[in-house]
């Protein structure tokens, strides 16, 4: 019981951390990572619900299946978001993104 609760609470805290970062930080990569942290949190809680105390029947496989599905969805969305972020970065001249790319350019040109 305690274990379940521990996992659930950790998941919730991860969710909250991700949410905070997603809203507060403006960097695209951070946002994407934040979303990933959030989804990890959700999966953690979901997995924790599958747990049943010993001797009270089987472990519930449905949350497992749901988490597997969720992970795949999360992977595909993350990939798409990363590619999209790259394209945004290439084609837009946002100040923030410039700041990121300029030093790299300098580094490359010196080497």
């Amino acid at each position, binding site marked *: 019981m305690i274990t*379940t609760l521990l996992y659930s*609470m950790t998941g919730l805290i991860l969710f909250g951390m991700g949410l905070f970062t997603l809203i507060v930080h403006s960097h695209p990569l951070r946002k994407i990572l934040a979303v990933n942290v959030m989804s990890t949190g959700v999966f953690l809680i979901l997995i924790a619900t599958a747990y049943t105390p010993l001797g009270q*029947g089987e472990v519930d*496989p449905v949350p497992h299946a749901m988490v597997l*599905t969720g992970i795949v*969805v999360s992977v595909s969305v993350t990939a798409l978001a990363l590619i999209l972020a790259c394209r945004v970065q290439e084609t837009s001249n946002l100040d923030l993104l410039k700041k990121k790319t300029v030093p790299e350019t300098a580094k490359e040109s010196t080497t």
Partner: protein
Amino acid sequence: MPKTRNRHKRLDGFQRLFLLLVVCLITLLGCILSTIPNSAPGLADAVARLQERSGVKSPVTAVLLNFRAYDTMLEVVVLLLAVIGSWSLTKSPLPEQDTDISPVQMGVVRLLAPVMCLVAAYLVWQGSHLAGGAFQGGAILGAAGVLILVSDFPWIRTIPALPLRIGLVLGPLFFVGIALCCLFFTGKLLGYPEGTAGWLILLIEAACALSIGITLASLFAGGRPDNTMKKIQPPAKHPPGKSL
């Protein structure tokens, strides 16, 4: 990851307020979560009861590919959609040109890739009774693909688009095809005929694992294959696939 602007700054008013809000929200949700009695029956019993009829021994695989196979079918489509979306956005910056591959890397890849394919096949195979299945296998296949991609083999550039697309679509299309065949034979979409469930699930898993592997590798490549033009374009200054 490069440092970003927010790293060393103190939080401003809005951010503090928001932090407070998030903390409150999480506390509230935590309280609610801890008060929920663990009495809900769940679906474990139902799965256990119907396990024999599912054709596989692993309960997770039974749920994924039999009881709730419709979910899985749509989910394979989600993966494919990510590829279509990324292909619609841009051409793949990989492989770069004129990079020397170190012999060590080359050797490792040559050694590892076949082994990974083998492991993937094993994972798919054992999915019917233990943990494992199409996604796990596909993930290993995808990793092999990524290894090959970062090794900048020149032949990657010459992979024609059509077989690649066939590979991508194979899993979902096969899944839908089986589903429709089941509809034809048993009158139920995805209702496998008596006794064939195990084999059909294995077939679907194999096709899906292949597709998922190719899908993941394509997603890593970050765009559609650029082999329509014979003349190879000069590489972009900051290939996005690498900068992140």
